[in-house]
């Protein structure tokens, strides 16, 4: 019994030291990580809509399970909807601007884990990504890929990523419509 007690104490001490060290590092890095996440969301918002301020508003989460938040621009430019949905590899988090006429004002990928060089191009700052995202501006909720009768050209080799983003944009417009 004594032996087990000794082992437990040693293990506990090691864990305590480890947790202490992690707490210390976490204290140093947490504010930086938080600021970075905020800056990233702010940059995504700025790239889809021109507004000086936002207020977060409530919506019907039951009917729109993929939608995370809706922010209304205080200058009346419209709403920015963030949603999380599954792409080809994992979840994609997208910010989508919707103007008062229920048209998309732009999209920005906040987070994703798509295949590098294919689906990941949706978030890329290179020409291919910019071109892909520009197609969404002015679309309404009937948005679809060109192979499904719409006007969005899918990214090369990433039909699934493109289709799920188009679907999320339609959903974002629908949730804003539902606000009335």
């Amino acid at each position: 019994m004594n032996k087990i007690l000794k082992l437990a104490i040693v293990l506990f001490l090691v864990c305590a030291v480890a947790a202490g060290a992690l707490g210390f590092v976490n204290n140093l890095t947490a504010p930086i990580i938080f600021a970075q996440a905020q800056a990233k969301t702010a940059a995504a918002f700025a790239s889809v809509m021109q507004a000086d301020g936002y207020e977060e508003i409530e919506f019907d989460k039951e009917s729109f399970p993929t939608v995370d938040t809706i922010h209304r621009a205080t200058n009346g430019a419209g709403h920015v909807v963030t949603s999380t949905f599954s792409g080809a590899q994992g979840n994609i988090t997208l910010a989508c601007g919707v103007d008062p006429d229920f048209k998309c004002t732009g999209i920005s990928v906040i987070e994703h884990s798509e295949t590098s060089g294919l689906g990941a191009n949706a978030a890329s700052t290179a020409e291919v990504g910019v071109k892909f995202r520009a197609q969404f501006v002015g679309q309404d909720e009937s948005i679809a890929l060109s192979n499904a009768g719409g006007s969005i050209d899918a990214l090369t080799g990433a039909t699934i990523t493109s289709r799920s983003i188009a679907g999320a944009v339609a959903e974002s417009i629908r949730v804003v419509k539902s606000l009335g």
Partner: protein
Amino acid sequence: MLSSIIEISLGAILINNFIFSQFLGCCPFLGCSNKVDTAFGMGLAVVFVMGLASAICWVINEYILVALGLEFLQTLAFILVIAALVQFVEMFLKKSVPSLYSALGIYLPLITTNCAVLGVVLLNVQNKYNFIESLVYGITGGIGFLLAIVLFASVRERVEFADYPECFHGFAICLVSAALVALAFMGFSGMAIPV
């Protein structure tokens, strides 16, 4: 709710198979796929532990780590839970289900360092799954692993008789055959999920 469960299951088993699309659990996948029987044993053990680990780690994460604001201890806590869990499962099976223990016994300790187990727990947190979704993801992710390892073991039994350059002996030829199986699994990635 039901549609999200179907979506998660299909995704974990076929579309985003743990081995062929996410590369989680490759070491036991290559190490234990010599024979279909051993592969099946390993796969079953993984399904069991992944399901249990998902459930337990979800509770620990939600009610201890998140509640106390200790999210930075996630990795540490999860790996300790998994290691302890594997030990307990081993002791429990040894005492109460000796037949299952003798079938799974030798694979159990290996599971601690199977990155599919820690991977599924971390992905549950990352994808913000609730308890049921986590449990389903854990079990179906394990089933995906089981499917992959059994299929691949049958492929390997055939590869043994194949005539290939000598320098491909061992893991090299396994990886090349795994690549071909992964190619087959890519067919599922076009599958639309009915919502």
